[in-house]
């Protein structure tokens, strides 16, 4: 049996140790907000927090998690100050096109704001580079992160 602490609640699961956390979340715990995009940690659609750190759930076997590791998913990120601000900013900026990658984007952004409350454009590039958006809403993701962080929305990169 594997014990997973997800969004503050402990679950005991009878699953193989090599099952990726992504599939334990989606199919065992019925938390489908975390998305499957590539299965090889290349796209970031499955980003969750493990003890506050942005982690690709598709490449994290449940057996590799330490007992007591605290997993947070998009379903509960609104309970954190950064998560709530980001969700509101995502709507205010109207970031979404298809929206499929956006749970992962918000999770990466929330991890960034936790360590770097006032991120620069370089900070945003570094933190978000692992999250693909096939619709390419990057301009708006950048704006929404800044809006949530309360910093100027201007894109300071070379133009």
């Amino acid at each position, binding site marked *: 049996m594997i014990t997973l602490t997800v969004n503050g609640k402990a679950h005991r699961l009878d*699953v*193989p140790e*090599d*099952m*990726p956390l992504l*599939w334990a979340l*989606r*199919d*065992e715990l*019925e*938390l*489908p*907000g975390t*998305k*499957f*995009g*590539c*299965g*090889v940690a*290349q*796209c970031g*659609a499955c980003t969750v927090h493990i003890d506050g750190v942005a982690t690709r759930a598709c490449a994290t076997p449940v057996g590799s998690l330490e007992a007591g590791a605290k997993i947070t*998913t*998009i*379903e509960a990120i*609104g309970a954190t100050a950064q998560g709530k601000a*980001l*969700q509101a900013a*995502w*709507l205010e900026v*109207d*970031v*979404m*096109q*298809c*929206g*499929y*990658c*956006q*749970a992962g984007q*918000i999770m990466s952004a929330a991890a960034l704001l936790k360590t770097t409350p006032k991120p620069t454009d370089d900070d945003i*590039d570094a933190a*978000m*580079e692992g*999250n*693909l*958006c*096939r*619709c*390419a*809403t*990057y*301009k*708006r*993701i*950048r704006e929404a992160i800044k809006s949530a962080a309360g910093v100027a929305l201007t*894109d300071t*990169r*070379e*133009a």
Partner: protein
Amino acid sequence: MDDASFKPSRRLFLASGLATGSALVVGFGFDAVAASEGATRLGDYVAIAPDGVVTIRAKNPEIGQGIKTMLPMLIAEEMDVAWEQVRIETAPADEKRFGAQFAGGSMSTPMNYEPMRRVGAATRAVLIEAAAVVLKKPAAELTIEAGVVHHKASRTKVPYGKLVAAAAILKLPDPASVTLKPDSAFTIIGKSKGGYDSPAIVEGKPIFGIDVAVPGMKYAVFVKPPVYGAKLKSANIDVIKALKGVTHVFTLQGSGDFHSLQDGVAIVADKWWYAKAARDQLEIVWDDAVGSPHDSATYAAKAKELAKTKGASVASNGDTDAALSKAAKKIEAWYEAPFLAHVPMEPQNCTAKVTADGVEIWAPTQAPAWGRPHVAKALGISEDKITIHMIRCGGGFGRRLENDYMVEAAAIAQKAGVPVKLVWTREDDVAYDYFRPGNYHRFEAAIEGGKITAYKARAVTFARDGKVAQGAGIGPHDFVPLISPNYVLEQHLIETLIPTGYLRAPSSNALGFVHECFLDEIAGALNKDPFTLRQEIVEAAIASPRPVKDGERGPSYEPKRLKAVLETLRTRSGWDAAKSGNGIGYGVATYFSHRGYFAEVAKVKVDDDGNWKVLKVWVVGDVGRTIINPTGAANQVEGSVMDGIGEMMSEITFDKGRAVQSNFQDIPMIRMSQAPHIDLHFELSDNGPTGLGEPALPPVIPAVCNAIFAATGVRVRKLPLLPETIAKAART
């Protein structure tokens, strides 16, 4: 609309499936019987609850283009309701009731702009009529504000929610007869509305195809041959059957139709991961000899050979060969664009349930109706026994115009005898794509007395079963015929086994690149500013329009619209002050596709190692007089521009019919740090609004390539645009 079909009744709204309990369908006189007789395309779009909440159906699939929000805006505008009162549902897939329901060709706006407004206006008219009865006042004295009907003189009013019972028994006016608002009266159209599903998305709510759950559902993977058309020889099915969580393993036989089933092994399990883990143990032998002649290198060599000879003339004017032979100055070039994969973020998936009564399908698809006949044939049932729910798609890009995953899910559910959710891996999504076909182009142009006297483009693209393959056409040719009085477009075809299809701005996404880069080469030969050359071509076409020839688009193409776009772009981009050189370059390109006139200037930076970055793109587009949802429109353009830049980074190559690349580690896509600044302006013209899913994409690729030339002197004639190629060319 056929008046005889107006039969508002209790049965009507119960049959619609939309109205439950408190909500009432405002009958468009069109019950299930009338619908099955194909009575009208104006179905029941609107439901009003007693509390005034107005539910509006969006008829087309949502793939990220924002149609679920935009189409109901049109209805709500003419109904005079407040946007806050509106709830939106996606309509069932039923073309007999809703007309064409697809997401493709940037067609949803031009096809639905007026019809959806007429739905709203007809609904408004019947509500006014009902209010006249309820308030006992003449209809002409009534006005509507935010879903409340007022009789100002008597200071009486009644909200829509209190009118539905009276409205339901009234006859709706013919939508063709109702009067639409003047644009000046718009309160919803032209005002930004955030995506309707966005609040659910930011909370991770299950709204995508891959999130569908049906009671008793199992999960499936389907293993197809990595080479299209290969036959299954053997598989260790008995071993797989014994693995943890696996409930069914069986083979399905291909139909020979490349839109439908292929040979393959289905693995059904209690949870998806067990099916995937079992699949990793699957030992499968294919007879894939059919793929052996289909290599990228073979295609390229064949294309070069073919291009030496005259191809089939697709469009022409004058005597191009004569003009070329006598020209004082001639330039030639060879261009190549690769095969590309679609890779929408959500891997293909579909959920299906088969019972004695029929098939129920939950599909993230761009074109449900195109899948229906394939499902019927594969399952041996009639089409009217198939119910398709259109589920929000995690991206489309043209891939979901195909419904192969839909047929597979239905066939697996039928054979397994349980509801099944089929989910492909990303590797499946790449291997089984309907790729943007690669293409090759030999160009020649003649210059005489400072004029372009001949323009010859010989394309080599691909064929399937002897016909131009999907996405491999070389038209339309709206701008090209304007370049020179003598021109010819020829086409050769290479028969391919590789399934090809439509990638966002199909054909145009490659044709824009090759024609607009070669035009820059011509500008160089003329020693002329490339922006000025384009403007001169357009001016000349306006000054002396010539008759439309065979193979050209008709009078729907208006050079004067492009002229206005170019003028604005020249100013906004600061073209005349822009200085290229020392690793910084500016390039311009224009393209007309999907009824949108777009021109773009790109500014790039290139370092000594050939690493390139697009710093900024100025975009000017004309898609008519009205930008229906400005935030959504801008989002589509920003995405198209960045998607075009992303397309310049990757390719799919083939080894014996098999795609060499498999996942995002070898299919680079544009990422956060590579996203350029974008300056966007819509040039409003007195034309009906047209779509924005595609037309901003084609010009960005040649604009960037032309900017790289301006920065480095290196002409980009082949994609993907690899840093080492630029660096090497810059050294020589």
